Every structure is written in C-alpha cells, then in structure tokens.
C-alpha cells in the first residue's frame, strides 16, 4: 500500500519536486526494509546501516554530520546541485540527510521541553513544602541538574546506551537519529555471539565522558535527550524526601543516581535483558516502555520511597501514629509547576519516537493530553466521591498521575484507552496518597504515588490496552502467527490478543520496583555512614533554609508561627 502510493508520487511529481520524489524512493527502501535487506537486494547506503565502506577508515563517529547523506545546496554559485544532472541516488543522498535532520531537530526540541520540566518539578515541590524550607527544596531541584548531568556524562550514558546499537531490532530497522549511533556498540552481558551482541544484555561500556570513540552528531543528540530524561528521575526523590534531607547527603545522591537509572534504562531502552524478554522468553515484544513510565517515573518513585523510609517522617507528621497535615506554602506555585510539567510532557512523550518523521507523534500528543485531563478529572471525582474538598494539590497530583501513566502506553493505545488510563491514574493517586500516609510513610509532595505507583500502572496498562496498530517488530520481535493474523506484529496487550505482552509488562513493573527500591535503600543506608542523611532536630524545627543553604527563601516575611508548631 505504502509502496504503491509512493510510486505514484514519484511519477507524477518527478520534475517539480525532487525532494518529494526522493522521499518516496526512500520510503520504498527504508520503510519497507524487508525487501531491501533481503540477501539478494542491493545494499542500503552506509548512512542507514551504519556500515563502514572501508574498515581501515571508519566513517563513524561522524563529528560534522557530513557523512550522513549529502547536504543539498542550491546551484547559485555553480558549485551546488544542478537538478537536471542529479541521479536518483544523488537525490536519495540528499533526502536521507534531510530525514535525519528532521528527526534530530524534533528530538532536540523535545529535549529542550523536557529540560524545562526541571522548573516544573521545582515549583511543585517547593509549593508543597513549608516556607521555611523553600530555599533548600528549590536548591535541591536546581543542583540535581548539574550534578546529575555530570554523573551522566562521566558514566551514566556509557552504562545505559554504550551498547545501544546491538539491541534487538526488527529487520530493516535503521537508527532514526543517524548512523553514527552504530558506534554505541560495546557492553557486558550473558550469552550471545561472543562479541558485543548478547542474549541477555546487562550494561553498556562505551561513551564514558563522551570520549573519542563516540564524538558523533547522532550520539550527541541521543546523549542530550537521554540526559534530560534522567534528570526527571533524579529530581523525583527530592520531593518525597523534602524538608529533612541533609544537603551534603543529597549531593552524593545526585552523583550516584545515574547508576541505578542507567542500568535499568539499559535493560529496557538500551537493548538489555528486559527488552530481550520477547526474543528470549516469548513474552510479547519484551518490556515495552515508550517514554518511561517505568524507566523514568517508577524508578524515581521507588528511589523516593526508599529515601522516605530511610529518612523517616518529618517531625510532627505523625502524632500517636495518626498522620497530621502539613500544608504547603504556595498552591499557585504548585499549579504553575504542574502546567510547566504538562507542557514539558509534550516533549517527553512525542520526542520519544526519536524521530520527527514518525507521524505517530500526533497520536502520542493527543493521548498524552487526554490522559492528563482525565487524570485531573479522576482525582477531582474521587475527592468528591469521598466527601472531601477539591484540594488543588491533589488535583495537580491527579493530572501528573495521568501523565505518568500514559508515558509508557502513549504510542500504542487508542484515545479512549488513553483517557481511561489517565482517569484510573487520577483515582489511583488519591488512594495511593492516603495509603502511604496511613502506612507511616511521609511523602510531602506525593511523589511516590504520582511517579512510583502510576509508573507501574502505566507499564501494566500498556499490557492491557495496546492495540497492535503501532510498534511492529518492536524489540526485534516479529512473530509469523501475528503477522498472518493481523498483517503485522505490532505491540498488543491483553484485550487485543497478546497476553504474553501483559506478562512482559508485569515483569518489567516488578523489576523496576524491586531493583529501584533495593538499590536506593542500600545506597541511602550506606551514604548515611558517609555523611548523615537527616538534618538535626533543631535544624528541622528552624527550617532548613538558613542552616543548610544559608539563604532564607522569603527574608522579608515571617515564615514561622513560632514555637514548635509544625505548621507554617
């Protein structure tokens, strides 16, 4: 179908629009790769396969992007392209360059939006803490960006994505961000071909400090996009652990958090053993997590849970075991932060196609939006049903819960399913907040419920509602029986005929919860020996702003009610 349409375009518009016709050629070769990659078919150019024409002089890494197709130039100075003399192959070269350019632009812009989510996290967390800790909480949200990035640059990227190119892919797949990603080709794992292709990938080992082997335009785009994602995980625990976490302990945490994050990201996104669960164990397409309900949010949420447990509740949070409310000091700030996050999510989810030419992005955008609104509505309905007032901090948690939940399934579900997933997320977050409070876990901002619990729900909901329309060959799984039955082997859940995908999602959910929690619990216990994790009682009563970071957030205002009152 796609093939036929492409040919029509090619014949009709050949003289008028070289770009369009060449795109059509490319569509026939690149988007229907099974034909072109068959053994008797002509080889795809190196800028799709990542192959080197001369092994002695490898083309990749490509530090200028010049080897990725050809940059089309107008013939104004007689040195540029003269359309009448270009062969189809010449045009193909130019369009290929254009294709990668569009993809890279999209991913970079999406990454800028994700980076801005830091401001949203800061505002939500600061608004939900007391005025006397506002400076400290905002400083944590601020410094987690530079410190986390430093660690990601030093070792995180290499662990997570160092063997990315050897992950399981369908036949004919190409790297949408460019062939330079083929340099991400060494890691550690179990089994496999004796080289760097593993049966069970465990971690990558290439790209520490973005060293000489990976100085490539495509690698840089990938590094940037994955870095801003990790920062989301890194900043989630600062909410669950706010108002009592010692600054110095936080600093070493921010340098450490890339380790569990990138290890787990490798298993799901970097071609590791959870991604391979489809190929190895017949579990659907393996663990599928489009934009990181599990990799990013559940990981952050469960690190936060471990942190909140090791730290213990804020002084005055529980009186005789009964949870006490400690109201945040700026609800408008929480709402503004939530809007920034919802805005940033339009980079988070649609950017995770890693491709601006994958038109599924419009579905991802709409699904993301629908889940966010139903999340807020779900939380409001739940409060109404329970006879509670429509607390704006809870409504914000509801919207974020919907967003977290749709993050994994956003590309794979119908809009009605996205709305339902968000709605359930919004209800779930209210019950979850009440549950953790009554369990004696003090989470000032609801991070465990929003990110941890709804991250798991996102993974599981994909296993239920994925409809098979998208993700054919995801994680290298192309099963003949599904192709026969449905025409292609897209990602499909319980309701659409693939219960094994549901099992894969459950496995993913269990692993992220157990691994994230266990790693973090051990880390917080250990790091407490290096420098105490909790501030002294005196500091906590006074507020962390002046003792810990030396700057009150609101020096012109009285931020205490005085005495030892917890509130205010």
């Amino acid at each position, binding site marked *: 179908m796609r093939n036929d349409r492409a040919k029509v375009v090619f014949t009709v518009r050949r003289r008028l629009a070289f770009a369009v016709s060449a795109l059509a050629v490319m569509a026939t070769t690149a988007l229907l790769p099974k034909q072109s990659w068959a053994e008797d078919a002509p080889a795809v150019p190196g800028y799709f396969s990542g192959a080197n024409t001369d092994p002695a002089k490898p083309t990749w890494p490509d530090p200028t992007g010049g080897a990725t197709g050809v940059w089309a130039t107008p013939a104004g100075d007689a040195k540029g392209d003269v359309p009448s003399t270009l062969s189809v192959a010449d045009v193909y070269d130019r369009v290929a360059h254009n294709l990668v350019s569009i993809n890279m632009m999209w991913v970079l812009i999406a990454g800028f939006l994700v980076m801005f989510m830091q401001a949203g996290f800061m505002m939500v967390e600061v608004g939900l803490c007391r005025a006397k800790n506002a400076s400290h909480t905002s400083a944590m949200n601020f410094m987690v960006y530079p410190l986390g990035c430093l660690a990601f640059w030093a070792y995180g990227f290499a662990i997570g994505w160092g063997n990315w190119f050897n992950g399981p892919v369908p036949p004919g797949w190409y790297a949408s961000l460019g062939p330079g990603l083929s340099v991400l080709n060494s890691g550690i794992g179990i089994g496999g071909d004796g080289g760097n292709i593993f049966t069970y990938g465990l971690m990558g080992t290439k790209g520490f400090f973005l060293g000489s082997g990976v100085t490539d335009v495509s690698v840089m785009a990938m590094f940037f996009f994955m870095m801003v994602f990790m920062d989301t995980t890194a900043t989630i625990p600062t909410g669950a652990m706010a108002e009592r976490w010692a600054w110095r302990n936080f600093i070493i945490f921010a340098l450490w958090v890339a380790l569990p994050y990138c290890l787990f990201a490798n298993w799901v996104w970097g071609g590791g053993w959870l991604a391979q669960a489809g190929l190895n164990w017949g579990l659907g397409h393996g663990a599928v997590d489009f934009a990181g309900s599990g990799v990013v949010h559940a990981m952050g949420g469960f690190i936060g849970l471990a942190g909140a447990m090791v730290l213990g509740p804020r002084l005055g949070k529980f009186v005789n075991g009964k*949870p*006490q*409310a*400690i*109201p945040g000091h700026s609800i408008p700030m929480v709402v503004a932060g939530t809007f920034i996050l919802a805005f940033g999510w339009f980079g988070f989810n649609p950017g995770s196609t890693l491709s601006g030419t994958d038109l599924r992005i419009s579905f991802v955008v709409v699904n993301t939006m629908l889940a966010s609104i139903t999340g807020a509505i779900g939380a409001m309905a739940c409060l109404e049903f329970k006879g*509670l*007032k429509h*607390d704006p*901090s*809870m409504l914000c948690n509801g919207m974020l819960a919907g967003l977290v939940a749709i993050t994994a399934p956003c590309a794979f579900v119908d809009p009605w399913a996205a709305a339902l997933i968000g709605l359930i997320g919004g209800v779930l977050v*209210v019950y979850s*907040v*009440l549950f953790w*409070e009554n369990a004696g876990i003090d989470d000032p901002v*609801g991070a465990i419920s929003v990110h941890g619990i709804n991250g798991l729900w996102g993974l599981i909901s994909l296993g239920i509602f994925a409809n098979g329309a998208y993700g054919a060959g995801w994680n290298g799984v192309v099963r003949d029986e599904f192709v026969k039955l449905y025409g292609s082997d897209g990602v499909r859940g319980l309701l659409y005929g693939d219960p094994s995908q549901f099992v894969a999602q459950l496995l993913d959910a269990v692993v992220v919860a157990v691994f994230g929690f266990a790693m973090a619990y051990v880390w917080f216990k250990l790091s407490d020996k290096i420098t105490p994790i909790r501030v002294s009682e005196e500091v906590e009563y006074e507020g962390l702003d002046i003792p810990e970071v030396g700057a009150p957030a609101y020096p012109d205002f009285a931020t205490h*009610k005085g005495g030892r*009152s917890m*509130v205010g």
Partner: protein
Amino acid sequence: MKKIEAVIKPFKLDEVKEALSKESIAGMTVSEVRGFGRQKGHTELYRGAEYVVDFLPKLKIEIVVDDAKVDTICRIIGQAAKTGRIGDGKIFVIPVEHAVRIRTGESGNDAL
C-alpha cells in the same frame, strides 16, 4: 484616658473604621494578629489528613480615647464588628497613664 483594644474578624475592619469615623475619633492603630478563643481554631482537611488551624488570623485595633468616649466607642465597635457567629472577637479596655504627641510635645488628653 483609656485604651480600647478590639480583636475583630479581618473583613470587618472597613465597617468598624467607617462607623468610628462618624464618631470623630482622632486615630487608630491596626495590626494583623493570630490567635484562638474558646473554639480552639477549626479543623481542615489537606491531602486527606485532618489538621487543626489553631491560630486564626484576626485584626487588632487599638484606640486611645478620653474616658467619656469609652462606652460609645465600645458600643460602635461591638455593633460594626458583629456577625453573630463564632469568632467575632473581643474588646478590652485598659487604663492609660500618659500620652505624648511627639511632634509638639503636648501631653495627656491634648496629645490624643
């Protein structure tokens, strides 16, 4: 001379001030205060947990007047600040020993 201290609901300030200005009082001092009375604040719900707002915001008005005016002013404040509901506040009358107008050095009743 007497000082009248009235703790009132914040939103009643304008009514109290207008009622008092008809009575040609010479000045007043207002401050934001917090406190509780017999009800000990009230209970609210935040993120599902109950909490007691134990110190409620109030305004405190201070007026120093000649002894003869005390009853009238107390009556006016009492009428203007009244809603009939819990938390309307209280009025206290305290003797004042001395007063000085700083600009002129006048003292006693002349300074009011």
